[in-house]
C-alpha cells in the first residue's frame, strides 16, 4: 500500500512546469519531493476540512443564547481518544518514512558525480569547475542591474532576456542535463545557503566547512538560484541562475568560452571583466560609494592610511600596493574598514588587468 501511495502521489507531480504550489520540477529529486509534498498536503487538507466542517457544524448547531444549558456533559470516550491518537501516529510514521527515504538519496551523491564548487561571499557567488580550474561568477550584480532596468522600462523584456543570455555566456552555475552533479558549498565570511527551487535542493554554506548537495537536472533551461540564509545587506540581491545544457558537448563548449578572456580587448576592459567575474564588484564600487571595501574611484595614486599588525601606516596606492592588497587582503586594512576581503585567487594577467582598470578610474 505504501508503494501504491508513493506512486500515486508522485503521479500528481509528473508535470515539469510550475504548478500552483510548486515551481518547475526539473531534477531527479523533484518527483520524490513533490510526491511527499502532495501526500502531506492531502492528509492536511483532509484534516483541515474535517476540523473546519466540525467547527462550523457545532457553531451552527449548538450556538445558544446566554443561560441555556448544554444538552450533554459527557467528557470522555476512550475509543475516540485511541482513534485520534492512533491515526495521527500512523500517518506521522508514514510521513517520516517518506521524508527519510527521499532525504537519504539527497544526502548521498554518487561517486561518479561531476564536482563543482560554489563559494558564497557577501554578496556574490563564485562557481569553480575543478576539472578545468575555471572560476565563473554568479553575476548577481548583472542580474540585478538587468532586473532594475527592466522594471524602470529602460529595457524591454526581449532586451533583458538577451542581456541575461549574454551574461550567462560567462557566468552562472552551468551543468549538463541528465548528469549527476555534486556541488560543494563554501562560505567566505558569514552563513549563506545555496537554494535551487526547481531542483528542490538547498544547503547552507558554512564558513570553515565544506557542505555538499547533488542533483541530476532533467530538463534543459535556465532556473533561479538564491541565497536562502540571511547574510546582511545584499542577501536578497545575492541571486544567480542555473543553466542546464542540453548535452555534455554543449556544456564543454560553454566552459571553454567561459574560461577564456577575449585578450584582444583593452586591459582596462579586461580588468572590468575580472572585477565582475571574480566578485570584486560586490564590495568595491566604481562611483565613490562606500561599500564593504573602499571604492576604486580615485583610488590609484591616492594616499592610503591603513593598519598593519595593529600599527598605523600610510602609502601611495601604486601597482605594488594594489597587487599586495589582492594577494594578501588582510595584511593592510584600510582606515574605516573592518577587513573582510577574502583571498581571491587571480592570475598574474588578471591582476595586471585589474590594476589597469583601477588606474583608469583615477580622477
Amino acid at each position, binding site marked *: 500500500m505504501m508503494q501504491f501511495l508513493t506512486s500515486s502521489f508522485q503521479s500528481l507531480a509528473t508535470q515539469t512546469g510550475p504548478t500552483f*504550489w510548486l*515551481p518547475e520540477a526539473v531534477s531527479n529529486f523533484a518527483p*520524490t*519531493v513533490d510526491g*511527499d*509534498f502532495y501526500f*502531506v*498536503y492531502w492528509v*492536511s487538507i483532509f484534516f*483541515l476540512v474535517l*476540523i*473546519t466542517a466540525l467547527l462550523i457544524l*457545532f*457553531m*451552527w448547531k*449548538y*450556538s*445558544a*443564547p*446566554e*443561560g441555556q*444549558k*448544554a444538552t*450533554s*456533559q*459527557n*467528557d*470522555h470516550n476512550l475509543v*475516540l*481518544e485511541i482513534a485520534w491518537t492512533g491515526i495521527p501516529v500512523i500517518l506521522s*510514521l508514514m*510521513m517520516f518514512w517518506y*521524508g*527519510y527515504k*527521499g*532525504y537519504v538519496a*539527497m*544526502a548521498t551523491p554518487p561517486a561518479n558525480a561531476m564536482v563543482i564548487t560554489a563559494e558564497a561571499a557577501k554578496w556574490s557567488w563564485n562557481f569553480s569547475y575543478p576539472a578545468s580550474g575555471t572560476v565563473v561568477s554568479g553575476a548577481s550584480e548583472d542580474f540585478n542591474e538587468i532586473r532594475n532596468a527592466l522594471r524602470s522600462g529602460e529595457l524591454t523584456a526581449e532586451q533583458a532576456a538577451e542581456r541575461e543570455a549574454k551574461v550567462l555566456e560567462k557566468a552562472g552555475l552551468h551543468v549538463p542535463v541528465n548528469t549527476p552533479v555534486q556541488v560543494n558549498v563554501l562560505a567566505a*565570511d*558569514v552563513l549563506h*545557503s545555496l*537554494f535551487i527551487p*526547481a531542483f*528542490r535542493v*538547498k*544547503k547552507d554554506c*558554512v*564558513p*570553515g566547512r565544506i557542505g555538499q548537495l547533488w542533483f541530476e537536472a532533467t530538463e534543459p533551461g535556465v532556473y533561479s538560484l*538564491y541565497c*536562502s540564509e*540571511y547574510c*546582511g*545587506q545584499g*542577501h*536578497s*540581491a545575492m541571486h544567480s541562475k542555473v543553466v542546464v545544457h542540453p548535452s555534455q558537448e554543449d556544456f564543454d563548449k560553454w566552459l571553454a568560452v567561459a574560461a577564456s578572456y577575449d585578450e584582444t580587448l583593452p586591459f582596462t576592459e579586461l580588468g572590468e571583466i575580472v572585477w565582475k567575474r571574480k566578485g570584486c564588484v560586490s564590495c568595491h564600487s566604481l562611483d565613490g*560609494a562606500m561599500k564593504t571595501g573602499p571604492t576604486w574611484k580615485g583610488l590609484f595614486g591616492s594616499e592610503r592610511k591603513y593598519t598593519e599588525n595593529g600599527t598605523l601606516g600610510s602609502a601611495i596606492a601604486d601597482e605594488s600596493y594594489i597587487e599586495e592588497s589582492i594577494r594578501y587582503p588582510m595584511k593592510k586594512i584600510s582606515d574605516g574598514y*573592518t577587513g*573582510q576581503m577574502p583571498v581571491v585567487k587571480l592570475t598574474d594577467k588578471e591582476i595586471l588587468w585589474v590594476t589597469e582598470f583601477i588606474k583608469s578610474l583615477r580622477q
Partner: protein
Amino acid sequence: MKPDDKASAGSDLSSQEVEQTSQETKISGPSYLTVTNTLTSWMFTLDHKRIGLMYLVGVLSMFLLGGVFALLVRTELFSPIPLITPLFAGDDAGAQADLYNQWFTTHGAIMVFLVIIPGVPAALGNFVLPLLLGAKDVAFPRLNLGSFYLWMCGAAFFVYVLFSGGVDTGWTFYTPYSTSSPTAVIPAVVGVFILGFSSIFTGLNFIVTIHKMRPKGMTWFNMPLFLWATYSTAVIQVLATPVLGITLLLLILERTLGIGIFDPQNGGDPVLYQHFFWFYSHPAVYIMIIPAMGVISEIIAVHSHKRIFGYRYIAYSSVAIAIFSFIVWGHHMFTSGQSTMMNIIFSGITFSVGIPSAIKVFNWIATMYKGSINLNTSMLYGISFIFLFTIGGLTGLFLGVLSIDTHLHDTYFVVAHFHYVMMGSALIAFVGGLHHWWPKMTGRMFNEFWGRIACTLVFIGFNLTFIPQFVMGSLGMPRRYYSYEDKFQIYHQLSTIGSYVMAVGFFLTAFYLIQSLVSGKKAPMNPWGGNSLEWHTPSPPPLENFHGVPSATDPYELDQFDYDPVTGNYSSQSSKGLA
C-alpha cells in the same frame, strides 16, 4: 447567519446599563484597583493582580511597537523596488536594505521576547494563576515584582537599541553574522539575556505556587487545565532559558574578546551556535504555545457551558509536549550541515510533538459537541485559534518531513508556518484570554458587537496575510528578502493588504477595550458561567482575592448555573468557594 443572530440577541440584553445588585458585591468593599491609589502603591505593589496588569500594559505597548515594524515590513514588500525605505534611509541602496533588515529583526525580536513569551504566562498568568488556586498571591510576591522590573529593564534595552542604530541580525542572532554586524548587537543580546531571567523567575514562582498553594480539595487532576499548561510552561522556562543565557553570554564574549567558540575565523563553529540557540528556542516555541493552549481549554469549555472533553488527555499532552520540546531542536537545522544521522533522528522525534497537539485539538472540538455555545468574542477567538492552530500544526508536518523541508527551509513557507503558530495561535489565544478575563481584571464589560467585528477582521486579515506566504514559499521565495522576483509580487501584495486588515481589527480592539474602561457596563461576578475559582469572587477582586478562604471547586462543572439576564451574572445555589 443564524448563530450570530442568536448571540447578538444575548448581547442586546447585556448592553443595557444595569446596576449590579447581587449580594456578593455589596459586601465586597474596595477592589484591588481602588484600595490604594498612589503611584508608589503601583510601583512597589506585591499584588500579583497589579503586577499582571502592569505586565499587560507593557506587553500591549510592545505589541503595538512590534506591530508597527510588521506593518513597515509589509508595506515595503508591497513592491519589489524600494518603496518606503528611501523615506527614512535616503537614496543609498545599501542603507535602504540595511534599514529593512533592522525592521524585520526588530519586529521578530520584540514579538518573540517581549510580547509572546511573557504574554500569556506573565501578563494573564500572573493575574489569573493565584485566583485559579484560590490563593492570595503567588508564592514569592517580591520575586514576582522583580521579574516585572527585569522585564522592564530588558524592554528598555530594546528601546535603546532602536535609538542607537538598530540591530540587523534577525532575531536568531546567527553567528558569524552577529559577531561581525556593525549594528547594536550587544545591547540587544543583553536585553534578551535580562528578559531570560525575568522568564526564569516567573516560571520558578509558578512552579512553587502550584505545588504549595493549591486549596484544600484541589488535587492535580481537578486543577483547571490552564494551570497544567502554566506548570508545563514553567518547567521549560526554568530548564531551557539558562541555556539561552549562556549562549548569549558566549556570543557577547565572542564579539568583544574573540574567544573563538562560534566564529570560524577564531576556530569556532557557527553550527554549534545554532545547536545552543535552538536548544532554548525550540522549547521557547512551547513556552509560547502551551499556555495559549491552556487559555483555549478554559475558553472552549466555559463558553460552550460544557465539561471539558478528555481532561486527562489534555493535561498529559501538555506535559508530553513540554518533555518532547527538549529533544527536537535539530529540526531547525536540517540544511545546516549537521550529520545525516542527526537529521533523521530529529525528524523522527519531531513527529512525536505533533501527536499531543492533535489530541488537544480533537478534545476541544469534542468539548463543543452538544454544548451550549455562546458565540461571544472570547469564544470566536477560541474557535479561530482551533482553526489557525490546525493550519499551523499541519504545515509543521511538511517541515518535519526531511525531503520536503530541504525545499521549504528558509522560505516564506516557514515564515507563514510559524506565524500561524506564534501569532495565529499563541497571540490569538492571548487576545482571547484577555477578553475572557477582561471583566475580572477591570470590572468592566466590553462591547460584544465591536468585539466580534474586530475578531472577524483579525481572522480574515490574518489568513489573507499568511496563506499567500505559504504559496510563495513553496514556490521558492526565500525569507528575509528586501527585494524579490516579480513573479512573487502578487502574493506579497495580498499579504500586505491582509496585514492592514488585521491592523484595523487590532486598533478597533484597542479602541473598544479602552472605551470599556471609561464607560463599560460594570461586570458581574461571573459573566460567562465559569466555575473555576476566579469566577467566585467579585469583578474586580478585592486585594486579598477572596473574602475568606475558598475551597476547591470542580472547574468544569458548568451546568449548575442560572443566568440572570438583568445582571448578566451566572449564579448557582450550590456553587462553592464563596465567603
